[in-house]
């Protein structure tokens, strides 16, 4: 099988990235998630890869295979050193392009090619040793081996080594006297440093402080160094002629498939880096079973953006479970404010979106749905330039969503109609839910209304509070019928305002 891309097995699996992040990215904090994943890898331009969800289970499995394989230290290290060497290649090449002095320019060019040869040779060796089984990595390895054995590459590599070896023999001495310096070949003069070290060896004990002075050094050379280098070139003319000819022979040494692989494979590495950091704090990630079944389930899932934020604050995120079975389609989430309801909804949608990219998802295990689109309706700041009322605005937006929504869509609704009168809110809420029920879409519906949690196809979930201190939320969302009284009762007890207590206290 010919190698196409490490991200897409076949040309027809390729999906075009959206030109910009869709609205739901902000609502679901997916923009933060993507930023967290690609942080530190700006040079690769990875963002478009996260704006192109896959359309088939097969395309997702292609990525899972590769991702799993890259979790093995050996494969991972192979890619890591390859990436580092390729990054050096680009950097050195860039420096060389900007420099005018011929000896220096060619020096940097040689460094760039050296790094490139290291990258290719190293990856061919290390990846072979790792023995990849995934379709993506194994067919890439085949391609890479062929290239590494081609005369194009082997001669490049051999010549590079030869030129470097020659240059390393060009040792010289600088004799500085007053305002002048002379350059001559090095003739084996003894180094003081070694003599000093030898003399005082017997006093040596443990680690020593570093007294070396930081002498600012810039990549570009100054005119004295250029002059000195020019003298060295005169002292060793054959060596420098060899370098000149070498540079002329290999102006474009970088192979395009290798360069593309270098960029694309970072999609995996970037994901796994963040996953590893979070796993170290005890959180779980898994490769979800993605299918067209709406019986989704997940254990110990969490909001990835929140988890990263809390990790940086040395805190931890609460995980939650959910499942839908039979004809259940809608999770209606109820409970006290600040109890983790929105976070729960985000976690649900993030899991699905990440799964559609072929990424590992938060949670110990997950069965997820291959959706066509995601819609979110979150509360907006009121826009005063718009004459519509908030209620009207809510209705317009939800209407637009329901218009485009299909049975294969995921809808996340957060506190709809919260600013309207209670009967209105109940009435409209039921209407909206009825539409979603009819559509048979998957939905999370976060609300403060108990009345909405007992319709058909819906499952009621509650955010919970600590039994011993009703003021503290556990951020655990559990499958349980809504019961607005329990929390109120607990708060009442705490403040001695329960029915019995008030009777007792008032007794004269």
């Amino acid at each position, binding site marked *: 099988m010919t190698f196409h891309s490490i991200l897409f097995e076949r040309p027809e699996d390729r999906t075009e990235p959206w030109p910009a992040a869709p609205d739901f990215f902000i609502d679901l904090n997916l923009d933060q998630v993507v930023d967290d994943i690609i942080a530190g890898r700006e040079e690769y331009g990875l963002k478009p890869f996260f704006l192109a969800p896959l359309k088939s289970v097969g395309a997702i499995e292609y990525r899972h295979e590769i991702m799993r394989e890259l979790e093995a230290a050996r494969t991972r290290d192979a890619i890591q050193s390859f990436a580092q060497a390729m990054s050096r290649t680009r950097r*050195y090449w860039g*420096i060389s392009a900007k420099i005018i002095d011929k000896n*220096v320019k*060619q*020096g*940097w060019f040689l*460094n760039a090619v050296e790094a490139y040869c290291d990258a290719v040779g190293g990856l061919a060796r290390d990846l072979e040793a790792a023995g990849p089984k995934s379709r993506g990595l194994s067919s890439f390895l085949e391609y890479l081996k062929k290239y590494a054995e081609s005369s194009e590459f082997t001669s490049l590599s051999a010549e590079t080594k030869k030129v470097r070896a020659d*240059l*390393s023999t*060009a*040792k*010289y*001495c*600088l*004799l*500085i*006297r007053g*305002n*002048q*310096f*002379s*350059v*001559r*070949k*090095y*003739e084996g*003069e*003894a*180094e*003081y*440093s070694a*003599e*000093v*070290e030898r*003399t*005082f060896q*017997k*006093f*040596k*004990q443990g680690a*020593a*402080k*570093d*007294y*070396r*002075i930081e*002498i600012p050094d810039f*990549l570009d*050379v*100054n*005119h*004295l*160094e250029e*002059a*000195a*280098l020019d*003298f*060295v070139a*005169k*002292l060793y003319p054959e060596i420098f002629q060899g370098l000149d000819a070498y540079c002329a022979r290999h102006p474009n040494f970088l192979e395009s498939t290798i360069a593309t692989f270098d960029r694309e494979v970072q999609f995996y590495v970037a994901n796994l880096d963040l996953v590893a950091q979070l796993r170290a704090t005890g959180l779980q990630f898994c490769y979800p079973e993605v299918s067209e079944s709406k019986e989704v389930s997940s254990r110990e899932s969490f909001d990835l953006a929140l988890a990263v934020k809390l990790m940086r604050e040395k805190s931890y995120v609460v995980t939650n479970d959910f499942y839908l079975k039979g004809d259940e389609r809608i999770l209606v989430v109820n409970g006290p404010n600040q109890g983790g309801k929105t976070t729960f909804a985000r976690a649900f949608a993030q899991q699905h979106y990440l799964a559609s990219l072929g990424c590992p998802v938060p949670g110990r295990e997950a069965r997820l749905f291959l959706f066509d689109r995601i819609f979110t309706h979150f509360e907006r700041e009121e826009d005063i330039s718009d004459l519509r009322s908030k209620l009207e605005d809510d209705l317009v937006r939800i209407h637009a969503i329901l218009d485009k929504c299909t049975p294969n869509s995921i809808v996340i609704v957060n506190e709809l109609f919260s600013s309207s009168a209670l009967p209105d809110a109940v009435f409209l809420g039921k209407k909206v839910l009825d539409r979603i029920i009819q559509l048979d879409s998957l939905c999370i519906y976060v609300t403060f209304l108990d009345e909405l949690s007992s319709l058909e196809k819906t499952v009621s979930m509650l955010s919970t509070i600590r039994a011993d201190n009703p003021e503290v939320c556990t951020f655990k969302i559990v499958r349980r019928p809504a019961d607005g009284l329990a929390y109120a009762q607990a708060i009442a007890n705490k403040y001695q305002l329960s029915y019995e207590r008030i009777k007792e206290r008032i007794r004269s």
Partner: protein
Amino acid sequence: MKVLLMHRDRTFDTQRKMPPNELALMQDLELGVLLSAMAGEDKFLQEVTRRAILSGLADIDEILYRQSTLKDCLKNHRVVRDIYKVAEETTASEKGIWGWYNPYKSTDQILGRSVKVLQLCVGKLNELRGIVDQHSGEFESEGFKALFAMLKGELSDEYLASVQALLNGLESSDGTLIKAELGQGNKGTNYALCRQPEKKQGRMARVFGTNEPRQFTYSLDTNDNTGTEMLSKLRDRGINEVANTLAQSSDHVLGFFTSLRTELAFYVGCLNLQDLLTRKGEPTCFPTPRARGGRALSFEGLYDAALALKLNQRVVPNDLNAEGKDLVVITGANRGGKSTLLRSIGLAQLMMQCGAFVAAKSFASDLSEGLFTHFKREEDTTMRSGKLDEELRRMSEIVDNLSSDSAVLFNESFAATNEREGSEISRQIVGALLERRVKVFFVTHQYEFAHSLYERKMANAVFLRAERKTGGERTFKVVEGEPLETSYGEDLYDRIFLGAAPAPAPAAPATTR
């Protein structure tokens, strides 16, 4: 080059973490008094002796090694103090050589200063060699013999001369010869200062002209200021490595003197202490350490060295034979010498385990894994919680760090509540400690507690009582005896409030022995 006077096989570790009960020991055993006697105002001596005393040895052989070194010091105290002086002077003089603190330091300065420091050290090494040559025959201990042999071997005349020659070579130079290679982007790298080849001035050179190799020379324009600076940077780069090596070498050589000073400091402290105690006419002896786990404790003429140093008279010594005992309970008259005895036992244990002599005519005890003190704190102003609460918190901290074959000294602990409750707490704690093979010394005036222990007739317990003569006069001597119900506080009350009998001084009347 290791000094190895504190341990046979390793250097004394001055960075070692001190035990968590450091402060309690300092306070309860009045170690401050002892340290002042050993070190005076000398911060360095204080630091090293404090560390030595608080990080006791766990091995009989190691203790005997220090004892024999200390015996040598007592015999040759002048020579030992001379060697200590050389080490002290070297480390002090180095600080006087200017250079480190200049923020604009250059490689030239580092190089120059290092050479000066090393010149100083060579002088002092010669001085040290002189002392060794003259006195090494007078020492008998393994530690000193090995040290002197090492110094003779490593600091031979040839070696000292070669160091001198190297330093002289570095101080004078005709131009700077720097070796370099081509690095990244063909930039010069691996700069290294080289020794200039000797100029050939033989007959051949005169006939065929100079033997200078082929070279190209670049002269800076007189107004090329950037060039001048770059050239000096280039030179800096060339010297950087050797300046670093020299500075590190001077650190290492100074490190040797510091190490010599450190390893002698404890012994110098012991010499100082011995001088003071001898002047007071108080005896000292080298104790007999017994194996860990085999319960041993016997002494004759044991006294509290800290108390002796504070007072102008001799203090009352005590004798005891408590072989095979896990528990020592001390009861009896208030201000009758109970706490003093407890402190003197703790102090002697610490002194023994650091390899020093102890304040006694004879002393033997098994090695302890750790010594802990739990004294009631009457004047603790930092205390925030209630008194019993505070005591229990301290006890809990001690328990965190206890292991079997440790020893705990209790001084009137858990008396901050009523006697029944306090006794029960004490009983439970002591019972658990004994079960876990911890040695317990308990000074208490809680009769119920002491008596209940006595009633158990444990073979591994001994009960001592502050002695008093008929007529209420205290002797400050503590002898074996069953706990008595009456406290002698009434006596004290009578004396202080009613001015009854004449107060005997805390020091011993001559009649006690």
